């Protein structure tokens, strides 16, 4: 296997994650883990968006929409109560196929709903479908028209989840059950599962990083970078630029949806605030400040900035901070903060963009 050294940072981060756990446990601050876990799931969105913006060179101002699609789909499917129709033939069939599960919610009510893994699968399929439907016409557009179209898409999702009863309107959906993975591992936000979920989230993030790193160092990754740097030349070398951009769009949508689905199970709920334009802009700001095509930068900034935001460090200026970051990066450091010469010393610890 060539280029094993691109995986060294993965191991380094994995080690850091364990060290962090030990430090927090020793100082009695394990409650920080909750917010780190949440930040990690948000970072999934950022990683996917980095592939789209930094490599395929396409902007999306609606990625919070895909996060919401992932989250709301699993929420609806795992909390819809089919008890009243359990004897109907259709539901009976689903039950016999083992696709439904009976459980008790926090209030002791009997709920019959879809298995979480089925809901997860459905969420992924729906995301791919919607990304395809939106992407097919929209990927053809240039620059700011693509930005506006994705913004419009994000707004439609927001209005839909805010307006429709099925999605809980302004209150969103709560009582979302845990997502049992394998054995006793489950995506669950309650205290006893805190440490377990900390590692589950980081495994998800590192898995996403490994897949992304593999991709950008592969033939497809080279093609994507070439599209970004000179679309006309790439086209003349046999690269179907439209198809590649569309595929990257769908892939990045999937990353966002996975983040949304897992975080929804973790939090036990989801609300329309996850689908706002502000959220989409935040994701863009994070990718920009990490360095548009710098995967590690995006991941680090994704976890860091979301963590700070969740801790309330930015206070009531939360959104303003991201707006300021966006402006600042665009004006002063369009290559991202981690490229500015002063920070070279720090970034020399991270892998350089040596691709093959």
């Amino acid at each position: 296997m060539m280029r094993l050294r691109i995986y060294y940072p993965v191991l380094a981060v994995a080690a850091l994650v364990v060290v962090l756990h030990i430090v927090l446990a020793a100082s009695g601050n394990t409650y920080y883990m909750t917010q780190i876990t949440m930040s990690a799931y948000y970072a999934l969105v950022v990683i996917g968006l980095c592939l789209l913006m930094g490599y395929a060179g396409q902007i999306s101002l609606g990625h919070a929409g895909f996060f919401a699609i992932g989250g709301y789909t699993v929420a609806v499917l795992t909390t819809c109560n089919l008890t009243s129709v359990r004897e109907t033939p259709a539901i009976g069939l689903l039950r016999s196929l083992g696709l439904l599960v009976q459980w008790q919610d926090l209030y002791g009510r009997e709920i019959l709903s879809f298995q979480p893994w089925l809901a997860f699968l459905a969420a992924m399929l729906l995301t791919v479908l919607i990304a395809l439907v939106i992407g097919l016409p929209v990927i053809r557009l240039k620059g700011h028209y693509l930005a506006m179209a994705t913004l419009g898409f994000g707004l439609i999702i927001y209005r839909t989840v805010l307006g429709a009863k099925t999605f809980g309107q302004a209150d969103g959906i709560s009582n979302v059950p845990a997502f049992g993975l394998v054995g006793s591992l489950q995506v669950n936000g309650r205290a006893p599962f805190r440490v377990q979920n900390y590692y589950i989230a980081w495994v998800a993030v590192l898995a996403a990083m490994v897949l992304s790193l593999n991709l950008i160092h592969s033939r497809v990754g080279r093609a994507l970078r070439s599209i970004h740097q000179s679309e006309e030349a790439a086209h003349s070398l046999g690269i179907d630029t439209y198809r590649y951009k569309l595929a990257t769009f769908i892939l990045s949508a999937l990353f966002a949806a996975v983040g949304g689905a897992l975080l929804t199970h973790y939090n036990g709920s989801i609300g329309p605030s996850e689908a706002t334009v502000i959220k989409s802009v935040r994701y863009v700001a994070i990718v920009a400040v990490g360095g548009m095509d710098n995967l590690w930068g995006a991941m680090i900034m994704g976890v860091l900035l979301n963590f700070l935001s969740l801790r309330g460090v930015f206070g009531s200026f939360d959104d303003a901070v991201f707006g300021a970051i966006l402006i600042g990066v665009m004006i002063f450091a369009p290559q991202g903060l981690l490229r500015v010469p002063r920070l070279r010393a720090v970034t020399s610890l991270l892998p350089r963009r040596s691709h093959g």
Partner: protein
Amino acid sequence: MNFALFVQYALSGITVGSVYAIVAIGFNIIYCTTGIINFAQGEFLIVGAMTAISLAQVAPLPVAILGAVLITTALGAVVELVFIRQVRNASVLRLIIITIGLSILMREAMLHIWDEQVRSLPYFTGTEVSTVTILGAHISPQVLWVLGVSAVIVTALTLFFRYTTTGRAMRACADNRMAARLCGVNDRWMVTLSFMLSAGIGALAGCVVSPITQTQYDMGAPLAIKGFTVAILGGMGNSMAAVAAGLFLGLLEAFVVSVLPSSYKEVAAIVVLLLILVLRPSGLFASRDASALRAA
């Protein structure tokens, strides 16, 4: 639907539509001169209205509005000088992202200066219960103010661009910046002027429509989306068509609301936007050569 109700909806649609048209014209002015789509356009309207509301507490209404327009115009100049001009060799996309950031900053600033309460300017003539009867429909006199002010803005701008030296210079910049510069036009000042103009007319429009739609700190973004939809619909840069397109969208929204729940009002505009971007990005009134808008 009887005729009076129809007229009511129609007038309501035209009122809102003319505001959208003004926002679209604001987009066009900046877009033509710089190629940037100013995402903060909607915020200019809200800043103007909010400033006028505050000033109206210490000054007579006309003075408050004038003051608000002047302050917002100055804000437009500041925005251009501080943020847009500083960026050297920026791609258009980078500048657009900057305006997105600006729209957020302005929104948050308004939230902190004025809080999230809904406010409004007092009605220019009469009160909220006075009505004027037109073709059997009872409407507020403010509607006539909106239509009147919009018409004045459009006319004044047309005259400005066609008959004044500065106006022609701006059009020259829009057409071919390098050539304009070679002819002695101070193109950087033209850019600043375009922002100021967009901010000013935005503020005026925001003030005149405030009694009807109320004003809240976060109304900027939805306005921008709709204004952009209208601008695209008419063809970017074509302000006459923007007026027609604005009226169209306003009417569409008004009649959609009569059929569907009001939360779907915004969805109507976005669907129109997406359809236009996909099917005919050059706008309804332009020629078919949309190739400039497509990627390879």
